[in-house]
């Protein structure tokens, strides 16, 4: 999956899960107050199933994955290091 495809999937998931119409690459979903209590487990489920990778514990800290850009970087890093399952 290339960069644009990953970005499109991540953006689509976030807008759907967080029920927001628009989300730019660097919008901070924490500061926008969009995150609900069940979001994190939805996010884990989405990333692991969609991109076939298993996230490490350190990567699941919300402070490090609060924008579309953060998430795309995380997923691409896994793909580049061959960490995908």
């Amino acid at each position: 999956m290339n960069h644009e495809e990953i970005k499109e999937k991540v953006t689509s998931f976030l807008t759907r899960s967080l029920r927001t119409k628009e989300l730019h690459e660097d919008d901070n979903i924490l500061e926008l107050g969009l995150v609900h209590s069940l979001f994190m487990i939805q996010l884990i489920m989405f990333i692991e199933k969609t991109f076939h990778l298993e996230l490490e514990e350190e990567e699941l800290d919300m402070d490090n994955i609060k924008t579309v850009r953060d998430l795309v970087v995380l997923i691409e890093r896994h793909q580049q290091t061959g960490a995908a399952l």
Partner: protein
Amino acid sequence: MNTPLQTPAVPTAEAIRRFVDTRIQPQAVQMDQDQEIPRALFTEMAAQGLMGLAVPAKYGGTAADYATLGAIHEELGRGYASVQNACTVFGMVCKPLSRFGTEAQKAKWLPAIAAGEVIPAIAITEPGVGSDIAKLETEAVKEEEHIILNGRKKYITLGQVADLFLVFARLNGRGVAVLVERGTPGLRVEPLHGLMGLRANMLAELSFEDCCVPAENMVGKVGFGFTHVANYALDEGRYTTACGSVGLAQACLELSFHYAAARSQFGEQLRKHQLVQKMLSEMITETKAARELCAAAGRLREQGDPAAITETLVAKYHASKTAVLAADHALQIHGAAGCLNGNPVERCYRDAKIMEIIEGTSQMHELQIARTFRL
């Protein structure tokens, strides 16, 4: 604990139906009256693969897919809701432990739980904090290589007999999940008796007074306790409780069919009376609807679709309400006979109401459904 790793076959719903009919249902009245699930039954259940439903095969579990898991919990709920809820607790501990636990934690505990050698419990609720888990008051302090717990937990299912507790606390204001073994100095377990329904849940109150455990007992990072570990557990618990509620409703329906066919009033069977038919029709329709909602949630869970979280909330909300409605109608159809202690309908009536409270009250479900839709 040296448990030889085996990979038992995933039990089928048909096999569990037979097990429920022969080993659980016949004991349900006694378990309700004794307020206890016999340890021997846990052993039998483990042999059926029921203790390892949420444990990966590499740790000796049966790792059922969600359709199978749902069907099995429906059968268990049809047999006796307390036994079904015990299996829910097993899942609520094993699922987050499998996801967030260290390799050492998983290797030590999961095979023993799947084998029925270790009974786990999950300790979230406190005397002053129920639904609002972000406000938990149990305190954890990290000192060198240890974690010291102080606080109280209440209404802990299986607490009376559990060998291992997954305890949620606050460390420097952030949520943590910690494994605490029974017998750890500073942990006191006091039985709570007299629950209205699910009377065999063996509830307990836990007190932690400078209860010291190794720091390596923490499940997940500091800060993950509520947002990750607890939510993972509660989400799993909501799914199996929804399916168990369908089973409870089905039990009410089957008991009512039987009674309405066997008993006559005004010269004809109860089932021929239109107002009885109305109640039976409502029970049939709502039970089928609840089952379909559970199936939909199960499909999404199996696909890993994030929408599964909301669909599970919807399924649990509707299924637990259906159990209450079905039990209410069943009691009405049975009349005085159903009000006698020892009649399964009387037990179902008491058990059903608890399904609307455990793993999040109906009101919390309404709020969470609204939030996930950003209402």
